[in-house]
């Protein structure tokens, strides 16, 4: 229906007016025909009345004289009028002439028959009634006349409506459509944000079209302002974005976004630099990248997500491409929408500094061997790492006659002797074995994997032999020392480092008691007490 309507305002307005006019015209015509019939009826009745007046004098003579011939003459004359359907002339009670009887009979069935009855007076005495004349009016004639008149009115209406519709169409075109089309054309030519405006060009500023032009112009200028602001904003945003991108691209810290599964959604180049080329594969799981620590990473992510707080942890990476152990610090931060931001920092250098600081604390300054603390830690590590099935031997070594060297030649010489002893010890054991100086002249060697007394004793004897070689302490002098050694085997399950060391120490004491320069085996812990 809507599509059937014409698109042009002119056509639509004209059509509307035409439809309205036709409807109004029809209503008016119906009212008019009804009115016209009443008016026409009155008009024809008036004419009949005039006719009656015309024949009155003759009729009065006819009635006066009871003259049927004259009456017939009158009736014949009247009947020549199409409007007259019948005539009846009576003189007193007597019917002089009548075509009306038939009509009277019909009138009883159809009350629509109109008639005009007039008394007839004597031509000589105006007060004396001598008869009556009745004229019957032709209904069909009334109808015909009314219809003709109605048709005429309708014709006039049709003509008027057509002219008005045409005039309205023209006016709408001239006053509304053409100006609007003009504005539309100008809008099409208008270049946005060029500051161009629509010219008023002979249009009145005060009418609706003028207002429209004004409104469009103010809209254009507002739009131009908005566009300029938008442009400025976009430029500022671009600069800011570029800066952020630069930070993102050039940062040393790996920046990444994790989805709910812990997969890397996006990351910067630094991320791949730290974790290797696999890191830039799309959708790779962070837990896979930091492979041995998958469980810890999942835990970290879960914690951060649960608390909504940033969480961080350090991870050591499997050395790849000969870079040595690389340490990273991972910090995860909930971004919302189930996403997490991750910051991955290469902390290898820091770890290295930390480690060397820690090493410094666990090393004996004189010999470079582990000190008491370092040895304890190393032994604990070995005990923890070796597991139940691996045997372990601990040698407690005490230098003989070292106090005399110290007292005789001074501390510096003592230190040289100690350093020499350290060299002997390190030479006597495997690289993976642990050697520490735990007191002034006391040393401990931890031998993982040594299970036979023979092997342990061999090593102990080699140490005693090495130490017993006179040591040059400068200025042609030599220090001659020896060593007493206690051996303890870790007794499984669950012997502590302290117990092991205590037993080795006790064995060493025994060796010292029994004459120095010898090796003693520690007793089983159950027998120690």
């Amino acid at each position: 229906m809507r599509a059937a309507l014409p698109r042009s305002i002119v056509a639509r307005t004209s059509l509307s007016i035409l439809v309205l006019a036709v409807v109004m015209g029809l209503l008016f015509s119906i009212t008019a025909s009804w009115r016209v019939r009443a008016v026409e009826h009155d008009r024809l009745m008036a004419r009949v009345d005039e006719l009656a007046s015309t024949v009155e004098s003759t009729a009065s003579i006819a009635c006066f004289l009871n003259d049927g011939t004259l009456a017939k003459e009158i009736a014949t004359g009247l009947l020549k009028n199409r409007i007259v359907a019948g005539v009846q002339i009576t003189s007193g009670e007597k019917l002089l002439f009548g075509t009306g009887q038939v009509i009277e009979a019909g009138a009883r069935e159809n009350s629509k028959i109109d008639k005009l009855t007039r008394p007839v007076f004597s031509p000589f005495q105006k007060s004396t009634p001598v008869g009556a004349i009745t004229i019957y009016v032709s209904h069909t004639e009334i109808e015909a006349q009314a219809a003709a008149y109605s048709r005429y009115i309708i014709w006039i209406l049709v003509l008027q409506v057509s002219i008005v519709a045409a005039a309205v169409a023209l006016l709408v075109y001239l006053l509304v459509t053409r100006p609007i089309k003009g504005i539309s054309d100008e809008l099409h030519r208008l270049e946005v944000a060029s500051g161009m405006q629509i010219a008023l060009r002979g249009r009145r500023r005060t009418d609706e079209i003028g207002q429209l032009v004004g409104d469009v112009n103010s809209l254009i200028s507002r739009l131009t302002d908005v566009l300029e602001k938008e442009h400025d904003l976009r430029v500022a945003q671009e600069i800011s974005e570029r800066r952020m991108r630069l930070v993102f691209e050039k940062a040393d810290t790996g920046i990444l976004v994790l989805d709910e599964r812990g997969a890397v959604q996006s990351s910067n180049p630094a991320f791949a630099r730290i974790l290797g080329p696999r890191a830039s594969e799309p959708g790779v799981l962070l837990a896979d990248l930091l492979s041995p620590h998958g469980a810890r990473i999942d835990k970290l992510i879960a914690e951060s997500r649960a608390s909504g707080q940033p969480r961080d942890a350090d991870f050591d990476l499997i050395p790849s491409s000969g870079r040595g152990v690389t340490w990273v610090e991972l910090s995860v931060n909930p971004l919302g929408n189930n996403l997490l931001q991750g910051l991955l920092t290469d902390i290898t250098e820091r770890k290295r500094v930390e480690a060397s600081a820690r090493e410094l604390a666990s090393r004996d300054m004189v010999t470079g061997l582990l000190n008491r603390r370092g040895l304890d830690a190393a032994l604990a590590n070995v005990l923890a790492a070796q597991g139940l099935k691996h045997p372990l031997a601990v040698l407690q070594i005490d230098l003989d006659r070292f106090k005399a060297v110290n007292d005789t030649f001074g501390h510096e010489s003592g230190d040289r002797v100690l350093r020499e002893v350290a060299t002997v010890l390190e030479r006597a054991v495997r690289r993976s074995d642990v050697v520490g100086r735990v007191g002034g002249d006391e040393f401990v060697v931890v031998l993982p994997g040594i299970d036979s007394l023979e092997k342990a004793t061999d090593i102990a004897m080699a140490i005693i032999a090495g130490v017993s070689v006179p040591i040059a302490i400068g200025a042609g002098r030599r220090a001659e020392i020896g060593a007493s050694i206690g051996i303890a085997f870790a007794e499984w399950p669950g012997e502590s480092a302290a117990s092991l060391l205590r037993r080795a120490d006790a064995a060493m004491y025994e060796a010292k008691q029994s004459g120095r320069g010898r090796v003693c085996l520690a007793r089983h812990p159950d027998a120690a007490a």
Partner: protein
Amino acid sequence: MKHVLLILALALLAVGGARAADAPSLVVIVNPASGVEKLTRDEVIDIFLGRYRKLPSGRVAMPIDVTEEGADRARFYQLLVKKSPAEMSSYWARLVFSGTSSPPFQVPDSKTALDLVQSNPNAIAYVDRAAVTSKVKVVLEITP
């Protein structure tokens, strides 16, 4: 105002009365044997203008017109129905071809009319009052 009108009316009546006295008055006469004693003005009109041609006694009436120049005919119709001779001619002319009615019988002078009435019991005529004889009967005096 009322008095003025009254005086004017009285004056007119006086003049009229004087004129009526001056003019010779007309009478309608019939034969004494006609059996008619009196006629009303309407009856006279009906008879002379052709409506009824019968006397109240049942006898056929024969109205008589006098055609003589300057005679009483014009005055009679003027007094009776206020019609001029021309109007009367027109009246009768209209009726000629219908044939239903005819104008009164025409005689040349009053003398002949009088004679006819004296000799014919059906005749009815109008004459000057002064011409009335004992052989006719006055049935109506025509007054203006």
